[in-house]
């Protein structure tokens, strides 16, 4: 035998799971939604996505290499790629590119790296960047191109109202007839509505969800608790007052699906235990409904998730897993 024997403590085998497997798994799950956004928003979507992804990767590499001077580069772990994709998903397809680059710098440089890089950030980088851009560039961030225009449109795309702004207007004026202008639920599911690039097709996102669940990348706790909470809360409101949109429309519109499936489930910023994840999901759902109905913005998903992110350490502190033998101990 030529080798030296290796000694280490047990366990001596590993499941084979890795950060890369999980991160690239999420990227694959994002593909259907990405293709949908290309299909519905054309060239603009491609340009914005490429810019976002490339600038996120660049900033990750640049900061690690030149500011933190780390030896190991983290660019290949896939987390910057996800941030880039998710950031693009949260933008309208006609946004100027320099704003995308600014958003990417904020996401990677401020939200992720200042806290210590992967695993240390308090907030979801893509969402924090979206909130930053929404406040910095309110006009560009809220003019949504209409889906399904000719393929080569970018900044010249026609813009229009999203279902959510219609819902908001109806709820404010108390005029239920405005809701009749909403597209049908089937259209919203497949993707015939305006809005951010990633939220155009709920169906594509659900395909991604099924993929991630089947590979064990995430569990059902967070997405399901968010969707069920929103459905129940808006359902009650709809029954009480028909001027509020129906729950089916609510869960299919805006960034809810995108947020529930891809944003809220971010490992780093979501709670560790299943119980904590359920609390986190319900909190996001309720906050979303409150912001959508009573807040200044038509969409509340991103702010709801960011607020819940801030509470994650607290939830981790109080939602301990059920200890083995704890129940028996108290019985006696």
């Amino acid at each position, binding site marked *: 035998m030529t080798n030296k024997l290796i000694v280490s*403590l047990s366990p001596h085998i590993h499941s084979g799971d890795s950060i890369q497997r999980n991160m690239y798994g999420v990227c694959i799950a994002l593909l259907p939604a990405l293709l949908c956004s290309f299909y519905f928003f054309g060239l603009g979507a491609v340009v914005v996505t490429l810019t976002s992804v490339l600038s996120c990767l660049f900033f990750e590499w640049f900061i690690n290499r030149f500011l933190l001077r780390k030896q190991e580069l983290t660019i290949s772990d896939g987390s910057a790629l996800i941030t880039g994709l998710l950031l693009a998903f949260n933008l309208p397809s006609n946004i100027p590119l320099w704003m995308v680059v600014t958003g990417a710098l904020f996401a990677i440089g401020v939200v992720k790296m200042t806290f210590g890089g992967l695993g240390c950030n308090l907030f979801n980088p893509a969402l924090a960047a979206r909130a930053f851009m929404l406040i910095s560039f309110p006009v560009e961030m809220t003019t949504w191109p209409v889906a399904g225009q000719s393929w080569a449109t970018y900044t010249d795309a026609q813009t229009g109202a999203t279902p959510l702004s219609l819902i908001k207007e109806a709820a404010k004026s108390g005029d239920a007839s405005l809701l009749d202008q909403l597209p049908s639920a089937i259209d919203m599911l497949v993707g015939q509505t305006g809005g951010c690039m990633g939220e155009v097709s709920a169906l594509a996102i659900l395909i991604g969800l099924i993929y991630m669940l089947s590979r064990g990348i995430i569990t059902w706790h967070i997405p399901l608790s968010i969707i069920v909470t929103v459905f129940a809360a808006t359902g009650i409101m709809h029954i009480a007052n028909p001027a509020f949109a129906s729950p089916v429309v609510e869960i299919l519109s805006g960034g809810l699906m995108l947020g529930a499936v891809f944003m809220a489930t971010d490992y780093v910023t979501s709670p560790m235990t299943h119980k904590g994840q359920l609390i986190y999901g319900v909190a996001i759902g309720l906050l979303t409904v409150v912001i959508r109905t009573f807040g200044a913005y038509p969409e509340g998903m991103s702010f709801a998730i960011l607020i819940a992110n801030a509470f994650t350490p607290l939830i981790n502190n109080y939602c301990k897993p059920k200890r083995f033998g704890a129940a028996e101990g108290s019985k006696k």
Partner: protein
Amino acid sequence: MDTILQAVGVLGIAGMVLASVLYLVLRKFAVKEDPRLAKVNAVLPGANCGGCGFPGCDAMASECVKAADKGSLEGLLCPVGGKAVMDKIADALGMESVGGDAVRMAVMRCDGSCTNRPQLREYDGAQSCRVAHITSMGETACAYGCLGYGDCVAKCEFGALSIDPEKGVLIDPDRCVACGACVKACPRGLIEIRVVTPDKTGMVVKCRNKDKGVAAKNACAVSCIGCRLCEKKCESGAITVEDNLAYIDAAKCTLCGKCETVCPRNTIHKIGEWETPAEQPVKEEIKNEEQ
């Protein structure tokens, strides 16, 4: 104008009332602190290293005051400040200064660097001496020596320790304050706080291997094999050999250096002379004597 006056009046009266409440509360719940505590605290270095054996300088100060009440500062020592600080504390408390004149520092008792000990296996776990210690005897055949993952270096608040890949753990005599953090960090007990001369030197057996001669010899090029040559040579009776391992009592050692020259294994060294040559010069006469 009226509005201004009203506002000034209301706020002024409210301020007066609240101020008097504050004053009364302050008087009522005042914590009486021994004034000597502050004096002692001012003298202490404030490093909070815990080297004195108490958790931080505040605790040390209150121990000093307690000891002063009992009549003697005997047994208390701030290793960072040494005699100078203990004198000042005694002065502040109106006590006679005691002890603390012995200079201490941490001494590494293993010279088992990579060049001295052949690597027999590979450790593939957390880069921590404590973990490596419970995993196995280590990467070499010596179950007593330095593991080399730097737990002691990480624990030193004063930057006195460093690891040299050629020479192992080095302790900087100028920076070491003998706080003892490294002693606690080392799972193999290789670092000892020793009394040294005022210019921080002394003789040390740089080995802790208790194996029998042959095993110790095979494990490391500079291991103590318990041959007792140094014990026989020492004129002041400072060296004892127990469990196949020599130990030098600093109180009796006269620093004559005879043990260093007689040691066939190049194990005994003067603190501060770190350079152990990669090629060990074999002392011919002793080698012959052994045979």
